[in-house]
């Protein structure tokens, strides 16, 4: 129903959880699926709310917020990564840190000092560092090389997907696999990846120059509010137990639906053969 439902392979992961045929394009989700952690109503800022179309959000807190903003038919499903985690065997040996520098999305430009950030990562992280870049930065050779020259392993989970084009069913699997092999997860901004890592058992950290998007607007209280409300998750050393509890809360990992419930909510019947739309 909405192209963003297929971002990061989210719909594929949920289709697998629901027992639908793996690999094929999942049927249409009848509603809008939250695809990233945010402090508003769960919808992307550029997504127009359409009355009557359900939203599937990650947390009870997001549902309350959405309701207060006039949204109705809001259901807490939890984050797709939390479902994927239930399908994944426990982590083996963990080592080092996976670091997610704050990135812009298509058409956005990050302004900040990568070298200073690299210096701070080197100074802080005790073990080997994997830097995960967004595909835009990964394909920008000067940026990628800077991180490589610092001795970091530089990876990219893939392309999140366009308007029903170039969809990447394995994005979330790759991300989870990387998180499960690292002991720490860090970023210069509190974001989905940090929560994912905390849920997957990593020690999270948020530090360093948070960088700036060109013409960035602070919606719903923006960065000052995030620092205030989730103060426990900011810093180089964060209590992993507290972080895990918060991640469970924010990703709705304690509210996951059964495959049958999810299929009912998404209008995914066994006879559903409608291609992704």
């Amino acid at each position: 129903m909405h192209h963003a439902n297929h971002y990061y392979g989210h719909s594929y992961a949920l289709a697998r959880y629901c027992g639908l045929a793996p690999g094929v394009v999942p049927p249409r989700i009848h509603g809008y699926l939250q695809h990233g952690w945010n402090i508003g109503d769960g919808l992307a800022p550029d997504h127009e709310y359409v009355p009557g179309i359900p939203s599937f959000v990650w947390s009870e807190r997001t549902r309350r917020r959405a309701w207060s903003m006039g949204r109705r038919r809001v259901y807490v499903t939890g984050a797709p990564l939390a479902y994927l985690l239930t399908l994944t065997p426990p982590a083996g040996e963990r080592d080092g840190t996976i670091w997610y520098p704050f990135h812009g999305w298509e058409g956005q430009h990050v302004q900040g000092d990568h070298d200073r950030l690299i210096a701070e990562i080197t100074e802080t992280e005790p073990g080997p560092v994997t830097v995960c870049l967004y595909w835009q930065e990964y394909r920008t050779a000067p940026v990628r090389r800077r991180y490589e020259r610092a001795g970091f392993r530089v990876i990219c989970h893939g392309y999140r997907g366009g308007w029903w084009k170039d969809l990447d069913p394995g994005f979330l699997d790759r991300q989870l696999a990387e998180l499960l092999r690292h002991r720490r997860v860090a970023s210069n901004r509190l974001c989905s990846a940090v929560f994912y890592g905390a849920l997957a058992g990593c020690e999270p950290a948020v530090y360093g120059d948070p960088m700036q998007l060109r013409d960035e607007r602070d919606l719903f209280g923006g960065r000052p509010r995030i620092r205030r409300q989730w103060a426990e998750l900011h810093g180089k050393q964060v209590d992993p137990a507290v972080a895990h509890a918060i991640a469970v809360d924010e990703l709705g990992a304690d509210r996951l639906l059964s495959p049958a419930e999810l299929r009912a909510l998404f209008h995914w019947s066994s006879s559903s053969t409608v291609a992704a739309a």
Partner: protein
Amino acid sequence: MPHWSDRSPAGGDALTVLASAARGHTLIVGPHAFPLIDAVPSARVTVLTRGVPDAEALAARYASRPGFEVCCGSLEKLAAVPAYDTVLALDGLDRAGSTESDGLTWADSLGTLLAVLRPGGRLMLGCANPAGLHRLLALPAEPGDEEWGAPAFDDASRPVGAGALRSALAAAGLDVLGDYAAYPDPRSPRALVGSAALRDPDLRGFLAGVVRRAGAPDEPMLADPRPVAVQMLASDLAGELAPGWFVVAARGGSVPLPDVILAATPDVVRLTRTARGWCRSDLDSAAVPVGRNLMDALLVAARARDLPGMRALLTAWQGGEFAGVSADGIVVDADGRLHDLRLGAAGDPQVALGHFVDAAPADLAELIAAMTGVAPASAPAWPGAGAFREVAAERDRLARELGEAQARLDWYESRLATRDAELARAHRIITLLKGTVPGRAATAVRGALRTGKRAARTALHQFRRQQR
């Protein structure tokens, strides 16, 4: 909450009287209207609100008031330090949490307020009644944007009665210094009636006027709540079924507040119990007249179609000095004398009579006008509540009247048809009669007479001309 602003804050002149009893460092929790905050006489005031736009509006308005502080956030974030001499939560405890928290229960919220109250401090608290008159007569409605959590009335820790509210405060070690039933709206009541006043049968006439004057809420309801409220007074249910309650509590002491407060024009009506009985503290301690409320006495007579009784009351009222006072502001004593309750300024007798006509059975309107010699003001002076029960009754009346009019029309038509038939029969008889021998003879005679009459008229005409 950066995006949130609370609508319809606690307010109104009646609550202003309570707010003015705050003292010392005062904490105001939840949405309160500016005039209510203005009425707090304390030098140090802290307001806690959950919406950023509301906090900004408060900060802007009170920027120049020294000792004024605005906090924004959820109640549970309030530091549990006993820092306040008065805590004012007249909006209740339902709008003190934000979307970011799971929501405190009512009991937890009360505990938080008590934790910030200094020993000897004063708590003024509002509480909507889950079984209040406003809910009994409410139209079904979809939950609004502020109901993102479970409905407040589903909270098991919440008091379900006036007694339970007092018990909750007593259990916390507080003495209830004043408790009020609030009408007609739990957030912005126009009347506050203390429990001692509700218990006194001598005040029934006065209180009937108070609850009627408090009027109907501004939103559409199933029915006009005023007659039901008056019945609740008589049934000793006006406290238990009030839309809301307000309590003033502290550990010992007393508070100089009236027992009954009515927001009226031009002044707030205040009633206080003294050693001499019930006195009007807004009117130089004038005593309160005892008797039946005239509006109720008139309605009883009207409903019983007791025309002599109604005429006697109407004559005494509209022929006397209180003709401009609405009937609900008057009591009739045991001797039949009328007394003005002084619940507001007197006005036009036509308007005053109109209030009674609006409340009385509709078929008596013309009779009442004839009895008083006054045509009541046609438009209701108090705008109707858009009450659906009244609208339905009005529709039924109009349907009945339309049916009656149609029946009359049918009857007229049938009479007309009968007359037509009789006329046609008469014409037929005449035609038949004309065809008989006597009939033809009569026609010939009549023709000859007409000819003779014409000839005579012509001759007379010519004769007169010659005479000139």
